[in-house]
């Protein structure tokens, strides 16, 4: 009966062993205290069971030393767990500098993955073993959540914003991917697989098919089609800011605030251009809300990222 019934999940990422160590520590703490309490209760219940129906217990009202002991010891143990849990969480929240970026769009009830080279996949995600991978995720409708138990990672996929999740797989294979935030009727069908491949196989797979070219090139085409290029010109003569070399830089807004240009900022500037106007420009750009899909937004963002700063051009 138990064959094929795992009691512990497989481990296939650099994070898995760190999470498991903390898990085993907590398991040890829990087993110790559960047995301590259960043992004492059973021992006392038997030893001090009522033999004479009229008897009463001893007059003991309490003891400060004991109270302090069982306040301070659990406090110290929980602080150890806190620091340990926090350090694991920091590692999860901070991806390494060099990552393979893959865009994820969740919708009821499927996962769409877009690789920078242009490959698109549904409910299946191919990644190379041993390389850090960062997923940049958003949703077309309600909140979803990417969860890969073998990697011990999980993050909500929220409409209207980008969330990140990174992992570095350690073993080639196929691993289950679940939607872990309830999203409606076919929530339990919103599942897929992460396919971890040897780097050489991954290269073969990558070169296998991207008929439409890279994500950035699709963005470039869209940039023309939507006539973004009439105002956002590389020569600083347009009515909008120069986008070349802009991504990752800090810009000053009309309000005097400064902003780092990241995915969320570019997205907002396309959908609600008037929300954060760069200092020195007029709020004349129309909104593209409803005109571009989440996937097209990602193409545009990737195009903006790809624009290198041109020499001799003065950016405002």
């Amino acid at each position, binding site marked *: 009966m138990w064959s094929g019934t795992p009691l512990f999940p497989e481990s296939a990422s650099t994070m898995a062993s760190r*999470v498991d160590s903390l898990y085993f520590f907590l398991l040890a703490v*829990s087993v110790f205290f*559960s047995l301590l309490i259960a043992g004492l*209760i059973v021992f*006392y219940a038997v030893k001090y069971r009522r033999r004479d129906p009229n008897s009463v217990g001893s007059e003991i009202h309490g003891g400060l030393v004991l109270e302090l002991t069982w306040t301070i010891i659990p406090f110290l143990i929980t602080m150890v767990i806190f620091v340990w849990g926090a350090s694991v969480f920091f590692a999860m929240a901070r991806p390494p500098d060099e990552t393979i970026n893959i865009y994820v769009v969740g919708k*009821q009830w499927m996962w769409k993955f877009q690789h920078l080279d242009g490959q698109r996949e549904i409910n299946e995600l191919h990644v190379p073993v041993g390389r850090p991978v960062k997923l940049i995720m958003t949703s077309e409708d309600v909140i979803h959540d990417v969860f890969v138990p073998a990697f011990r990672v999980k993050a*909500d996929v*929220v*409409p209207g914003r980008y969330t990140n999740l990174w992992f570095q797989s350690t073993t080639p294979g196929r691993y289950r991917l*679940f939607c872990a935030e309830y999203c409606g009727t076919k929530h339990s069908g919103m599942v897929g697989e992460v396919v971890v491949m040897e780097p050489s196989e991954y290269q073969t797979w990558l070169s296998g098919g991207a008929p439409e070219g890279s994500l950035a090139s699709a963005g470039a085409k869209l940039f023309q089609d939507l006539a973004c290029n009439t105002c956002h010109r590389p020569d600083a003569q347009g009515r909008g800011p120069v986008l070349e070399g802009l991504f990752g830089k800090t810009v000053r807004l009309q309000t005097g605030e400064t902003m780092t240009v990241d995915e969320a900022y570019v997205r907002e500037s396309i959908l609600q251009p008037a929300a954060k106007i760069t200092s020195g420009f007029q709020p004349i750009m129309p909104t593209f809300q409803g005109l571009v899909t989440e996937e097209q937004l990602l193409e545009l963002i990737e195009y903006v990222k790809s624009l290198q700063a041109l020499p001799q051009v003065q950016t405002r």
Partner: protein
Amino acid sequence: MATVILPPRHYLNDGYGIRSWLFTRDHKRIALLYLAAVTFFFFVGGAFAVLIRLELATPAGDLVSDETYNKLFTMHGVMMVFFFLVPVIPAVLGNFLVPIMIGAKDLAFPKLNLASWYIYIVGGLFTLYALVTGGVDTGWTFYTPFSTVASTTKVIPTALGIFITGFSSILTGLNFIVTIHRMRAPGMTWFRMPLFLWSMYATSLIMVLGTPVLAITILLVAVERLFHFGFFDPALGGDPVLFQHLFWFYSHPAVYIMVLPAMGVVSELVAAFCRKQVFGYSFVAFASLGIAVLGFLVWGHHMFVAGQSVYAALVFSILSFLVAIPSAVKVFNWTATMYKGSISWDTPMLYAIGFIGLFTIGGLTGLFLAAVGLDVHVTDTYFIIAHFHYIMVGGTIMGYLGGLHYWWPKISGRLYNETLARISAGIIFIGFNLTFFPQFILGYLGMPRRYHAYPPEFQVLNVLSSAGASILGVGYLIPMVYLMWSLRYGRLAGSNPWGAVGLEWTTTSPPPTENFAETPVVTWDAYDYGAPVEGHVA
């Protein structure tokens, strides 16, 4: 020992017609009205649980459709949380006992007390209406934007039912706070009060301060759904995560609304069945207040993977560890109370022991979830389901059943069949663990919650869980039978069948409508077992 006779005049024979019940202002009769209502909702919610566990016996979604399954777990959660777990101990045991334990004739506002029962019933009817006209599929958590833009089910009637019922909680809390402040008998100082009253007081504070936030949140959901105001839907300029902040600002403290009263009951049970002062009375009392206050500051631990800032997550993590400390202090104090006690193995004590064991496991697994880096893996899986059922079912329901058995002779004037009661307590304990322990393993394996169908490698553990649920269901039905039976055929209890101290045991069973022939004057501390007491009649 004198022959036990029923008192000639008591609250149950003070009027017989239906009007004498529906228009009563007697807190004891209102407690019984609540008892009938919460028991009804418990079995409705339980019926949904049965269907959920039957569906999950096989990996494929084959018994009910996915849509139906989603409605089942939603209605199970809604019924159990808002219509059973939140009101059960305060509205039934609290209503019956708060005035008696402080030596008062009734609550401060008897009409308000009856009004809160009617409000509860109206709220319940709204939700039942939603149920029979199609149900709701948002999960009991109503996460946006799913609940406001995507779901096509009866979100508004359900939410309105919860909104209305919330006012019943607020009024009950208000009534208890005023009663405990103003109506204590002469000599009943704060530190002579039974610990059950401290827990009721702490619970009432949360009800009064937290429930309005839930009401506002529900209203915002309804307004966004009906009139497309952009509070939560990003397409309308709202923030979906804002909903989670508002929802959990109430719903985490609500966990303590559900478990603090059970802790109060267990303090009473441990003292009465060890015939001993609760070890560290003031530490246990202040632990209740500490939990009530800290409980308001930990809501963000439900959102570690929702994209809040890393530093916010760390603050919520450390506060969540801190709120675990007073709970641990209580467990140690109950255990220490047993040392050199005169321990009886009567049914209520079995429930108290069961509570301490299960609550310990529930509390310790809470530490797994407070540790941010580990929570990321187990949140939204069956680990969460197992954890909160250990607290809600293993804690609250065990505490409630223990209290119901302890005070049943006082409520009804009669004794139930002790043998059957012990057997069913054992059945519930075994059935509970078989149902929910495998879910911890499933959760760490990665089985997500709210899944209608699941991968085949999870089946064996799910079958164990479903088998346990059927045992648990039987365990809950048996007390229904013998408690009803005892109402007519049970032996008379007499005023103090357990040989316990406490004002409620100084009056007759059942008590007269005005509770005491004369207002008692209290000159002793709670749990004053200084001298040998007369053994109970069983």
